[in-house]
């Protein structure tokens, strides 16, 4: 196994990348996911693996500086130094003329020569320009040729403008073993990045999305947090309980006490490939100071109101102001909407003074499908690709 260099990712894929594997790190435009490749490279070098890095877009020196800055430690501190083919090689190959066949032969010759002379085991290739120069099939054939010279594993980074259909081709037509897509959305503002394990050949149907941040040269996966808040007695605990209860499954929700002896509900659930933690804020006014700090790392907020108690909407309005300061996606769950005398959506919107882009759902918090629908809508608004 070759470690991905990211602990959380290694755990997700069962320890790392199998030898002889084909790996694709697909980056959606604008997503800072370059550390996936750099981390894997650093990790392979630290293990003493002989690596070739193909950089058609930049020079060795500029890449070395970027890698050191991104990862915190320079590649030159690794026990094993990589070998490179860089933009200068590409320029020389381009000068061979318009014949794609001639240029392909030269790429293959250079890669095989470097691999043979250095007993290269793993190739790291920035694939954009090979893809552009030769197309997908021929570009991959060029890399495949290295297998004849002993380099049995290759790991690609690609700027992906074509989305899921292109990734399907890598899996279906070219038998890639691991395909990871780094993506982003502009919500919560300004950017929320996450990766999706689209495919792992040794773990079929293993599709999972995990948000990540970049911190001190590391990719740090984290569990998204959704906050359920609302005025006292609006049904927050009921909402959280319904969210996590699965028929025939163990209840994943708990209620615990914080240091101030206040009850906090939370639960876990799996939704749209995300593992999500749902927190309920304490309901009593004495706990109000706790509420704003809890918004800070929330990726979405469900504001539960009691549709039969208009008198409580003033405190709901205050909560909305606190949420919108952080520009966190917000949905309103109007609980007890099935009871006589409950307010309709228009009345709720008017009383809360909310714009049309904040959805209001008429629900009953004791009905699990209602609660799940609210959460699904919120997760969609968080993860919608810009």
């Amino acid at each position: 196994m070759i470690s991905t260099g990211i602990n959380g990712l290694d755990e997700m894929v069962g320890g790392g990348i199998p030898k002889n594997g084909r790996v694709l790190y697909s980056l959606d435009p604008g997503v800072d996911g370059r550390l996936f490749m750099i981390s894997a490279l650093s990790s392979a070098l630290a293990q003493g693996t002989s690596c070739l890095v193909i950089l058609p877009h930049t020079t060795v020196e500029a890449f070395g500086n970027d890698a050191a800055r991104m990862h915190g430690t320079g590649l030159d501190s690794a026990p094993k130094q990589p070998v490179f083919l860089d933009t200068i090689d590409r320029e020389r190959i381009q000068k061979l003329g318009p014949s794609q066949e001639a240029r392909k032969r030269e790429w293959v010759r250079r890669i095989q020569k470097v691999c043979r002379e250095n007993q290269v085991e793993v190739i790291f290739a920035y694939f954009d320009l090979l893809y552009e120069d030769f197309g997908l099939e021929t570009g991959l054939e060029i890399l495949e040729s290295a297998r004849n010279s002993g380099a049995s594993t290759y790991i690609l980074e690609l700027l992906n403008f074509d989305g899921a259909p292109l990734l399907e081709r890598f899996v279906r037509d070219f038998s890639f073993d691991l395909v990871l897509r780094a993506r982003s959305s502009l919500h919560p503002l300004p950017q929320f990045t996450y990766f999706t394990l689209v495919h792992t050949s040794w773990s079929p149907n293993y599709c999972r999305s995990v948000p990540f941040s970049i911190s001190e040269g590391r990719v740090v996966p984290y569990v998204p947090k959704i906050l359920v808040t609302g005025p006292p007695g609006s049904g927050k605990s009921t909402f959280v309980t319904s969210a996590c209860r699965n028929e025939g499954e163990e209840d994943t929700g708990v209620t615990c006490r914080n240091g101030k002896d206040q009850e906090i509900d939370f639960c876990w659930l799996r939704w749209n490939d995300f593992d999500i933690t749902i927190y309920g804020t304490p309901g009593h006014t004495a706990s109000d100071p706790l509420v704003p700090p809890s918004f800070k790392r929330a990726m979405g907020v469900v504001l539960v109101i009691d549709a039969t108690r208009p008198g409580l909407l003033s405190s709901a309005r205050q909560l909305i102001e606190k949420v919108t300061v952080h520009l966190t996606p917000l949905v309103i769950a109007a609980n007890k909407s099935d009871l006589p005398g409950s307010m309709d959506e228009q009345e709720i919107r008017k009383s809360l003074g909310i714009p049309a882009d904040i959805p209001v759902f008429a629900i009953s918090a004791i009905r699990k499908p209602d609660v799940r629908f609210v959460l699904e809508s919120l997760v969609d608004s968080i993860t919608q690709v810009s």
Partner: protein
Amino acid sequence: MYSYKTGIALIDEVSGGFDAGINVLILAPAMSYADQLAYTLAKPLQGEYAIVLSTNERAAEVIDAFKLAGADKRFTGVIDAITKSSTPGIMDTQRMMFVSSPTDLTGIGIKFSNMIETIFEGDFSEGETGLFPPPIRLCVNSISTLLMYRRLEVLYQFLHVLIAKLKKIEGVGIYLLNSESFDDKTLSLIKQLMNCVIEVKLENNISYLRIQGIPGVSGDWRKFTVTKGQVILFE
């Protein structure tokens, strides 16, 4: 919705400026003052920010040009695709970021996102004005250079994504393209991405422009010059 003043009375008096989310192509021959025109349209006014993607000039030169145009450099950021090839060790700052070359669309996209994030988080400069979303003018100087390094189809996809993001954050985009260096198919494809085209031509060493795509604004050719960050149109 926010309106971006252009400094061109013809536009500002009719429509109040460029609407948020609009993309403007400046189609111009070489040496027609088109880059000065672009910088003038892209310079940040009070409370605004500018991001310049420069494939032709170094970051320091861009900042100087903006200062000459009367812009506050504290609110101007540059993504420089030139300097790194000769100075590989150059470090990014909040307002100057460097990519290895104009081929590096991955790097350009990431630096653009990072700069937007810095602006939204209020870390771009001291004296943030608190407008939200922060008004951002993007200037790409130039699409012509990017087309020399990447295929048209790839660049089209890249610009499409860039424009979608800009629209989402309610920014405005100014893009320069040399009208003499590319075939009709290229010009037509790039125009498809835009809401407004400002064509520039040179006759007897005099620059003319015409504006297309802004309702109520005449599409006639007008003589113009750019002086100290002001676009002056003549009858």
